[in-house]
């Protein structure tokens, strides 16, 4: 048995080294994406004189806001061990809804927007009830909803964009208030409220508990189903807000708008440290993740990098971040 003793000592040594690596991994996981973001900003500032200018920074903020807003809800869902693939289609259908309501039915812009939010909420409700009560895996039900919702958007419009124009929508989508683009205000308010809700209220705690250990949450008397339905409805409404902002900016509701957006949104959450194993993730992290994706996009455009190459770079960034996060979490257990 001497041999096995030596082996165990060896193993102990190994775990110590791994432990140190784990700390480094922790550090990288926690601050790595932020450091990455700062490095990107530095590089783009050096190579492009347009990058670090006020108009461009505001432009980044406005461009990022669309994905970033949904990423708040996506992070909530991922914390509960879920996923929502239907958000991109929800953006499309809500944009179309707003357009049709305004143009075909003459509904005033503000009420058309509310209607769009209602549609987003209903999509979220269907997702949430299916996950919480019917117990369909989130991936499956939201994949189905992604196709269904997109199809509805095409059926309603016959495939053609719906024209949207009014002073109000122009102000919401393209306007400025106190020198800052209007969508950025939505972006800011949703992040502040979203972060406080998750970190400071009991409901936020329940979201973490449900994702971290559903049984423990249930035994603690938490209404697990209500929490699950809640996060999906919330995400549906956020996708609708993005849909409204996007349609207002484009001055039209094209039925294909938001295609593939779910992937960028999920990427932002994951870069921000949300774990598919559940129970982990913060809105601050998600903000950094979303900004990183936005900056990367904008900077590469300014540097005239081939769009196909851009796709590769984006994929590599996601791969790298998730690789680090998986490594460090494996060390911990």
């Amino acid at each position: 048995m001497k041999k096995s003793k030596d082996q165990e000592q060896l193993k102990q040594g190994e775990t110590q080294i791994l432990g140190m690596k784990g700390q480094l991994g922790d550090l990288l996981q926690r601050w790595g994406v932020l450091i990455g973001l700062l490095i990107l900003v530095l590089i783009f500032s050096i190579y492009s004189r347009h990058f670090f200018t006020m108009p461009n920074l505001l432009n980044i903020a406005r461009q990022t806001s669309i994905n970033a807003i949904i990423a708040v809800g996506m992070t909530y869902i991922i914390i509960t061990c879920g996923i929502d693939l239907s958000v991109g289609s929800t953006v499309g259908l809500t944009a179309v809804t707003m357009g049709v309501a305004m143009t075909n039915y003459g509904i005033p812009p503000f009420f058309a927007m509310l209607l769009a939010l209602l549609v987003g909420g209903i999509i979220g409700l269907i997702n949430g009830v299916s996950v919480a009560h019917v117990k369909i895996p989130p991936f499956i039900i939201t994949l189905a909803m992604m196709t269904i919702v997109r199809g509805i958007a095409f059926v309603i419009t016959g495939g053609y964009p719906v024209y949207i124009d009014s002073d109000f929508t122009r102000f919401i989508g393209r306007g400025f208030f106190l020198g800052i683009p209007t969508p950025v205000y939505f972006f800011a308010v949703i992040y502040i409220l979203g972060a406080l809700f998750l970190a400071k209220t009991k409901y936020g705690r329940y979201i973490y508990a449900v994702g971290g250990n559903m049984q423990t949450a249930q035994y603690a008397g938490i209404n697990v189903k209500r929490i699950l339905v809640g996060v999906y409805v919330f995400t549906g409404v956020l996708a609708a807000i993005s849909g409204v902002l996007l349609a207002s900016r484009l001055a039209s509701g094209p039925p294909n708008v938001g295609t593939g957006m779910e992937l960028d949104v999920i990427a932002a959450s994951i870069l921000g440290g949300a774990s598919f194993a559940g129970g982990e993730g913060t809105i601050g992290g998600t903000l950094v993740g979303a900004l990183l994706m936005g900056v990367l996009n904008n900077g590469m455009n300014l540097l005239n990098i081939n769009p196909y190459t851009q796709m590769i770079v984006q994929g590599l960034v996601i791969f790298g971040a998730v690789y680090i996060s998986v490594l460090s979490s494996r060390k911990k257990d």
Partner: protein
Amino acid sequence: MDSILSFRGITKHFPGVKALDSVSFDVKKGEVHSIVGENGAGKSTLIKVIGGVYIPEAGEMFIGDERADFETPMDSLEKGIRIVHQELNLVEKLTVAENLLLGNEETFFTQSKKDNQQALEMLEQVGISLDPKMKVSRLSIGKKQMLDIAKAASSNPSILILDEPTSSLSKGEISQLFSIIRSMAERGITVIYISHKLDEVMELSDSITVLRDGKHIETCRKTEVTPQKLVQLMVARDMESMFPEAKGKPEKEVVFSVENISRTNTCHDCSFKLYDREILGFFGLMGAGRTELMQTILGVTPFETGKVNILGKEFSELRIDTAIREGVGFITEDRRSSGIVGCRSVKENMTLPNLNNLSKTFGWVDSRKEKEIVADYGKKLNVRYAGLNQLIKYLSGGNQQKVIVAKWLMSQPKILIMDEPTRGIDVGAKQEIYELIQDLRKQGLSIILISSEIEEIMGLCDRIIVMKDGYIHKEMDRETSNATQVVEAAFGR
């Protein structure tokens, strides 16, 4: 007869527990050798040593005359050792034949007809009649168990180890299994049989080994012992000093009562009362339905008939959140799967069921109050942690358990149900929990203590309810009964 498997001083530690303490005995070739002992006696650890899953820190194991240093399960398999675990090792979606031949397919393309024929022969050889074309998922649990045994036996092992094989079998299936085991023994296969059903052990075995607290107590021929003697050997232990003096005694008033609670396949017509400041023990074998009964009473899985009375309020249906609100706390049996949220902090774990009292409008948590109360309870229960924000998974089992106790005390229950509160924690922490249980009684709580350790039941409880097969089998007074009687009741005597 020569011995085929010998242990000499096998020792294995886990953090805080000596799971095997210098165990030495011999298993003779071709015999049916039973290993008995309470939960935690070291049976499963020993099996894992034989199976090459655990490497002992000291001691030697011999197969025949040859020394065996197993480092991986493969080493054990190569020596012809097969283990059938309680959790079955079958692929549900495949057929009986496909399962039997899994990993031993001879050709690239499977040949159903030939494979089915081969499987049929294998089954016949062991004496089990099953349709090879049947999907495993459509078999009864008993048949699956048989199939798993057939699979292990078909490779002509030298030693076949069966871990609690009868727990899901019917009477008929058990006698069928026994004749299979006997015919295997006649063919020269050594069978090691793990069970805590003493009547089966007495019926089947040639030799019996008793383990207790990781120590080898006795190995004897079946003819040399009686079931009573075995029970005594399994439980006799000096633990008096572990338990604090009773601090107070039960009052006359009933605080919690359960009447005729039933749920299909879980518990049947269960009724009991809990008195003010009483410590009521629930004892039974694994699978007796104690945990399931509590889950049903509290509405985790709703009961179908019956009613529950909490502090004078009657409920004909109950949900766990209502039960908590009415003053019941439930410390669950499995810390990891239903007690803690591993990836969250000590603080968040402790306040999880109590956030309603710690939050204001919009559910805003009063973080100063929260920190104070968590630090307060942490100190009261002597929890050792690096900081309130330390993740709970980094605490030791005993400290995790204290956080769980704290979280339920914080909700100020009147009735506290503790399901195996000392499972898997070290002796020191156990004593602290015992001390705490008596303190809680002194403070006016009534406690239901589920435990599989008879010493705990005898050392702490005022009254003992013994459960068996989902029924309340017997109610006993601690003053007038001894450990042996209680264990015998659990075995159904």
